[in-house]
């Protein structure tokens, strides 16, 4: 009986060898696909880290514009973030710009409200934000997987941290940047750097992201809260965005993100 059982087990084992082999052979062609899925997964997780952590949150931030290596302008803004397509940024400082609002009211639907003329004008995602190195999409649309197709270029050390290096290609020509090289931290999928390329494949801007220590009030541990954008247009110029306070779970009335309601507030 025991012997029979052993024979049976051995027989299953003998039969299993070619089966495993066949299964392995069947998966070999999928190895490339697995890499693509991995790139997408990395991008999705990086987007989630940003998107989900900020969802329904209010972020108070500082906007520091440096020219010729000296601080020239400081803006303060309140960012109301509902989801990746619905974001409202309102300037609270300086008094001259107080009340200016930038709204993303859906995919590629950006508005700028100027209180001194009491008008909302439609703007492009690639328009510069307050004459800084950031464009509207850089600040208002953190979810890249909607606009770009990712490809994993490999792993790389960046600032002594292990990162995935992704190449993101624009899905269509209406996207602000043709290509982004993206470094995502392996341990928690928080982004560390983006290099933005134009359609002529020339580097235009670089965004470096860092987390403060201690973390900004309300922000998850490790989440970048300081963003330094530099551009090839001016060597001695950069713009720094710094989160000052994150208030999660704020919740906003639906009309907050409607263009028609911009002037009523």
């Amino acid at each position, binding site marked *: 009986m025991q012997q029979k059982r052993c024979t049976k087990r051995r027989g299953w084992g003998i039969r299993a060898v070619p089966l495993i082999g066949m299964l392995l052979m069947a998966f070999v062609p999928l190895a490339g696909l697995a890499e693509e899925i991995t790139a997408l997964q990395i991008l999705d997780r990086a987007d989630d880290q940003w998107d989900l952590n900020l969802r329904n949150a209010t972020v108070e931030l500082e906007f520091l514009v440096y020219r010729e290596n000296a601080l020239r302008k400081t803006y303060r803004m309140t960012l109301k973030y509902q989801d990746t397509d619905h974001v409202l940024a309102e300037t609270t400082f300086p008094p001259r710009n107080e009340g200016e609002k930038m709204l993303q009211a859906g995919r590629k639907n950006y508005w700028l409200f100027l209180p001194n003329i009491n008008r909302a004008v439609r703007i*492009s995602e*690639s328009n510069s934000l307050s004459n800084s190195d950031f464009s509207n999409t850089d600040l208002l649309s953190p979810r890249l997987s909607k606009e770009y197709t990712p490809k994993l270029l490999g792993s790389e050390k960046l600032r002594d941290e292990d990162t995935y290096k992704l190449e993101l290609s624009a899905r269509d*020509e*209406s*996207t602000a940047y043709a290509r982004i090289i993206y470094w995502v931290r392996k341990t928690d999928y928080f982004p560390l750097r983006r290099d933005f390329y134009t359609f002529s494949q020339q580097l235009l801007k670089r965004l470096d992201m860092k987390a403060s220590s201690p973390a900004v009030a309300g922000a998850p541990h490790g989440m970048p809260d300081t963003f330094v954008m530099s551009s*090839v*247009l001016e*060597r*001695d110029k950069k713009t720094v965005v710094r989160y000052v306070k994150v208030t999660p779970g704020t919740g906003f009335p639906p009309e907050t993100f409607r263009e028609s309601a911009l002037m009523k507030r």
Partner: protein
Amino acid sequence: MILQLAFKNLLRNRRRTLLTEVSIIFGVLVIIGTGNFINGMQRDWAKFEIDSSTGAFQVEHRDYQDLRKSETLKVTMGSGAELVERIGKMPNVRAAFGKLNFSGMVSSGLKSTFFDGRGVDVARQKQTLSRQEDLIVAGKSLDETAGGVILGEDLAAMLGIRIGDPVTIVVRTFHGGLNLTYGTLVGTKNGRHFPSTIYLEMRLEDAQRLLRVGDRVSQVVVGATDFNAIPGMMRHVEAALRTDSIPYALRGYAELIPIYAQAIASFKVISAAVGFVLFILVGGGIGNVMAMAVMERKREIGTLRALGMEKNQVRRLFLAEGLVIGVIGAAAGLALASVLTVFIASHGGIHLPPAPGTTQELIIFPQMDPFMSVFGVSMPLLVGVVAAWWPASRSANLNPVDALAED
């Protein structure tokens, strides 16, 4: 008979008649001369701008003027090369070239700013705008070398760059993405028709590639073989394009040259005002001469009336004197104005200094203005008669006995 008498009477006080004639001639000369100058300036200013920047007229998308600021690239015209070729073959067209207008950021590497740019077909532009190179302040105009960039003189100064320095240009493409190219400053430009602080020019092919618009153009600039043929050319081109049901619109040079229409209208108002003032002065002069004549010739009028001359005949005599003064002054003034106009035109014209911030001087060749000539000639005739009317009536109504008793 009356005219002969009138003429003789005028010669009786030659000095006074001469002074009156001088004032009339001067008035006519100023009116016709001003008209001829403005007529010449209107034409030469237009020709100058046509040859250096605007062309005789431009063809553009029907909605271009409404949307050029918000949707500059969306109101461009497809198959630009074919359209240029087609218009270039139409009657009286010297040449035509495609122009692509766009905006973006230009940088020296240390400073950056907004620009208002245009891509131009370099070879065809040279054929179309014969004085285009006059606008170059430093360096040279664009040639067939890729990557060449011309900036407004003030823009280059603001960026702190010189000829041969690299520039970086960033634009939003036709589809909305960002694009960047590097170029080299080959020249700086200045002119009245564009703000030098934001002007950028590059080759059409470079601009089309940068903006990813294929061979689309914003405007087709058309040069004319003959200035006087421009209205006819415009009608022809408009009719030819209308048959294709293509949403094109034409804009003539008068609309394209900044402040042209307003300036010409202002000059015409000024010349009309000058004419009116001279009308009063000349009229006053003739009226004064006639009034003096009546005063001085009361006894003579009384004698004529006593001899049987009718009131109407006396009135006609004085009116004829006014008319003779006017005719002589008008004819002499017209002759003098014509001679002066021809003389100035044939001796290099009048050189106006360049407008502030520009280097091109404008040369005005005065040209006879039929309207102002008719006005200038008819004015003293009319004024002579009108101004003589009151003294003539007064003389006709004199009582012969009273007139003869006058000291």
